[in-house]
């Protein structure tokens, strides 16, 4: 359920009341104004573009901002050689100020076109710190080992051009226009201290194309994200750091993977095989062993001949969290950078998983998938980066101030 759901329903009820009064002819003045509007309901509804997400708070935005916005850009910056603590502090102060203004629908400081950021469409800006940032500020020892170096997995085919980075910007919005503007202003203000390492653009189904709360489909046609923790205590426990140094409490960790999909062979693979590879149906996302989307796959079910219905190598059997510490929030986006000159797809998923500790969540789950997962026939991890997500900041503060000092 989207947060605005109840208030929209309430607004609809109030409008209904006004329309009834007009129909009764009891208020001539009211009727005059109401009837002059072609469709009172449409005029009164605020445009979706006006919706904003607060920047300031205990946690950074863009993580438990759900449903995830329709568009995302992940951008990794590298600090220029010689950058130290003062430079990083100035950088984060500038970018936090920009993010706060842009997310509220205001132009960044010194920008003169208020129209471009005016309809942010739930714009969020989220900052992640890579190992190079910790090193630059002289706090290399504070970078968690799992963020400094994720283990290598046997199925990895990682390319440096999609991997690593000192500072991550995750910028999301339901509308690619304010997103594009926000990104160019943020990068402009970062340019004197950083260079751009990589940029990866992703998308989900357009907002409103399916009822609110529907699990998005990926480019393989699967409902992707069914197993995500529900917003509330379950998500909070999976995502936010509770025990740790004070500069990290309220923060998180992000594992970002560029997962290439071999969509040509996938498209030519039979429907039954596609569903068995994951153990969930393509149409509803429900388990092939029965039930609804949010029911679990029954790995022990056998058919009339006593044969297992679900292969032990099916994706969800391998990927399912086996302990609470393995839970994470998958906030992925599809990417499509193709076709190639010879007409082949160049597409897949920008897998973005938030978790309190990647060492107990992403790492063991990915180790299982790299060992055995039918989906490995079609997917390849082509890029990888891990970041510490510092907690949010209060008004007047900046993201990372606990680590850097205000």
């Amino acid at each position: 359920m989207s947060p605005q759901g109840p208030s929209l329903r309430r607004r609809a009820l109030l409008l209904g009341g006004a329309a009834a009064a007009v129909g009764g002819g009891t208020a001539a003045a009211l009727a005059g104004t109401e009837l002059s509007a072609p469709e009172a309901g449409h005029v009164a509804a605020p445009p979706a573009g006006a919706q904003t997400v607060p920047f300031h708070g205990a946690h950074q935005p863009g993580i438990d901002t759900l449903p995830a916005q329709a568009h995302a850009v992940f951008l990794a910056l590298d600090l220029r050689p010689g950058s130290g603590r003062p430079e990083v502090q100035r950088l984060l102060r500038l970018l936090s100020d920009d993010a706060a203004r842009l997310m509220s629908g205001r132009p960044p400081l010194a920008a003169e076109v208020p129209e471009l950021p005016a309809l942010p469409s739930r714009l969020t800006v989220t900052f992640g710190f890579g190992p190079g940032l910790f090193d630059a500020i002289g706090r290399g020892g504070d970078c968690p080992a799992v963020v400094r170096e994720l283990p290598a997995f046997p199925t990895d085919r990682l390319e440096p051009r999609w991997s690593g980075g000192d500072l991550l910007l995750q910028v999301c919005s339901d509308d690619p226009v304010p997103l594009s503007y926000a990104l160019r202003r943020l990068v402009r203000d970062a340019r004197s201290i950083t260079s751009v390492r990589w940029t990866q653009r992703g998308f989900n189904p357009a907002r409103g194309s399916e009822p609110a709360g529907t699990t998005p489909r990926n480019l393989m046609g699967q409902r992707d994200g069914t197993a995500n923790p529900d917003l509330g205590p379950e998500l909070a426990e999976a995502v936010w750091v509770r025990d740790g140094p004070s500069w990290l409490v309220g923060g998180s960790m992000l594992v970002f993977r560029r997962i290439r999909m071999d969509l040509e062979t996938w498209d030519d693979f039979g429907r039954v095989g596609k569903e068995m590879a994951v153990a969930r149906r393509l149409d509803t996302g429900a388990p092939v062993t029965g039930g609804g989307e949010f029911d679990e796959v029954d790995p022990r079910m056998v058919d009339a001949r006593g044969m297992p219905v679900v292969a032990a190598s099916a994706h969800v059997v391998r990927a399912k969290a086996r302990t609470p510490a393995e839970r994470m929030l998958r906030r992925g986006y599809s990417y499509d950078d193709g076709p190639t000159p010879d007409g082949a797809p160049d597409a897949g998923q920008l897998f973005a998983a938030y978790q309190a500790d990647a060492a107990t969540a992403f790492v063991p789950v990915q180790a299982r998938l790299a060992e055995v997962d039918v989906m490995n026939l079609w997917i390849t991890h082509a890029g990888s980066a891990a970041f510490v997500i510092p907690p949010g900041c209060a008004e007047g503060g900046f993201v990372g101030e606990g680590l850097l000092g205000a």
Partner: protein
Amino acid sequence: VLAPGGDHIMIMDLTAPIRPGDQVEVTLALSDGSTIPFTALAKETTGGEENYDEGAGEMHMSGGQPG
């Protein structure tokens, strides 16, 4: 009201450089003898299309609300 491209304050003969992202303590001394202190975030800009001397960059300052 101070605004980009509108009324603004020029700071000249700086004794130390102001770098983007610096928080600058500014005190305005008014003609009636009162002062207005505020903190401004410094930012690099090419806006305004103004040029007051050869090659000098201009720093735009805003962000604090005069007390």
